[in-house]
């Protein structure tokens, strides 16, 4: 399996309200990330837009339906479609989540939590190996936000994720907002989480806003909060320069507002790299 080279830069998720900017202007970004499933179609406007954006930008494919944690196995039709899209778009890399989305019969269309057990570890590693073979490249696996921990858990999420990376050779997409949200929901320390991961395998970082509460929820509908910015600095000082981006999926503001928000990430990254140098 090939390795994935580091790529440092700043990007945003490509979302429909901003298509016209990407098609008509030169948007100052190092890459865009798209939700793979939205473009795993036979033809028409979505692919025409993505082809045009690809002419100008590096593209990362970010999936939500691989369902690597399904005991039922991976969906070959899905993998075929994803490979077709990857062959067309030539993304920098392909990512999905540490989760499962479907049982043998049904699809939840949500990133559902896995029990962190030896059995689940075997399942997800086998599925990721199949997916990586099929896609002929290593994947990036993202830590999800979660709202429940199982009584049968045998290890922490970071131990589980580290072991998946070790066994499958996959890389990591570190979502610092998800670390923040899950740390709040399950009362663990975000610093412990980061310390427990093989950070040299992180190739991308996600930032997003969430809805605070007794159970914090990963809503991607508002600006990144201070706690998450702090965690970004903490993470970047350990990962070194990687691809950093903001995900915004609801209450989507004008593009200029997200570009401004991304400047905060640039400043934090600059500080982190000065700290590393010192």
């Amino acid at each position: 399996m090939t390795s994935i080279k580091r790529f440092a830069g700043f990007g945003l998720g490509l979302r429909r309200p901003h298509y016209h900017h990407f098609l008509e202007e030169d948007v100052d970004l190092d890459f865009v990330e798209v939700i793979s499933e939205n473009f795993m179609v036979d033809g028409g406007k979505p692919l025409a837009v993505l082809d045009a954006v690809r002419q100008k930008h590096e593209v990362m494919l970010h999936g939500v339906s691989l369902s690597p944690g399904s005991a039922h196995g991976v969906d070959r039709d899905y993998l075929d479609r994803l490979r077709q899209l990857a062959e067309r778009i030539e993304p920098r890399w392909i990512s999905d989540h540490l989760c499962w989305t479907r049982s043998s019969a049904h699809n939840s269309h949500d990133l559902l939590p896995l029990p962190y057990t030896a059995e689940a570890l075997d399942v997800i590693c086998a599925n990721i190996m199949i997916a990586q073979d099929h896609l002929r490249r290593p994947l990036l696996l993202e830590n999800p936000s979660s709202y429940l921990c199982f009584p049968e858990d045998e290890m922490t999420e970071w131990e589980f994720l580290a072991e998946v990376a070790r066994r499958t050779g996959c890389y990591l997409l570190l979502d610092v907002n998800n670390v923040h949200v899950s740390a709040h929901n399950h009362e663990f320390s975000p610093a412990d989480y980061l310390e427990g991961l093989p950070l040299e395998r992180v190739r991308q970082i996600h930032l997003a806003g969430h809805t605070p509460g007794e159970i914090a929820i990963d809503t991607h509908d508002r600006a990144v909060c201070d706690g998450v910015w702090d965690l970004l600095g903490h993470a970047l000082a350990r990962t070194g320069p990687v691809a950093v981006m903001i995900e915004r999926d609801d209450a989507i503001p004008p593009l200029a507002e997200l570009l401004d928000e991304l400047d905060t990430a640039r400043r934090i990254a600059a500080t982190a790299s000065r700290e590393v140098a010192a």
Partner: protein
Amino acid sequence: MSLAARQSQFILALMSDDAPLPETWQERQRKGYEVYRNAYRARLIAALEETYPRTARLVGDEAFRAAAAHHLITYPPTSWTLDDAGRGFALTVETLFPRDPEVAELAWIEWAMQTAFTTRDTRPLDGSGLVAATASFGDEAWQDLRLRFVPGLAVRQVGHDCMELWHLLGDEADLRAARALPPLSEAQGCVVWREGLRATFTMIDAAEARTLEAMIEDASYDAACDILIAAMGEERALSFAGAMLARWIANGWVGAIAP
């Protein structure tokens, strides 16, 4: 309990409040689970609202959400793509709103348009392509002519002026007028297809719609003409058939002449 069994149980309980949760779960797990349960419903109903915005306006938000919830319980999603969640919703609303057939007609159009929007990119056959393909045709070849239509082309009979209904339910919706729209005196056909990068639809004569339906199902031109003859008599049918074929070509509905 195996991971597979746990995952089946987890998903079944997302879909139904009555499905049991694991006995080992404490209050903490149950609270967390509620987040997934609410998100599942909200996400799928939102997906149906996105596919069927005009149907939702026509019946009103509350009735639409109830219909969407009913659809999701009857046909829980199985596909990896959320776009498929609304498959078959026109049939669901046909049973839920039996006295308002325009609801199912509109839902059918919205689904067919969503489907047409992302179909395979093809170049339709144009007039000169038709002339070239049929240049050597004798009578027999014409009678036996079969057409291949562009991907996404869909046709059905409708009892309402769906163009008008569509317009009344647009961004500046006139709900009162839409809900009061009387049925057509005679059924017509409605055709959905992709025109360039956008999905669109038009209304056609009922006999033409039956003819189109038959030819989509691989009927010959001769058999198609028989449908028209039965509907309008031989004399009119023959001139109608020629104009109809020209219209289909001009609309970009025909992909190719069958080999």
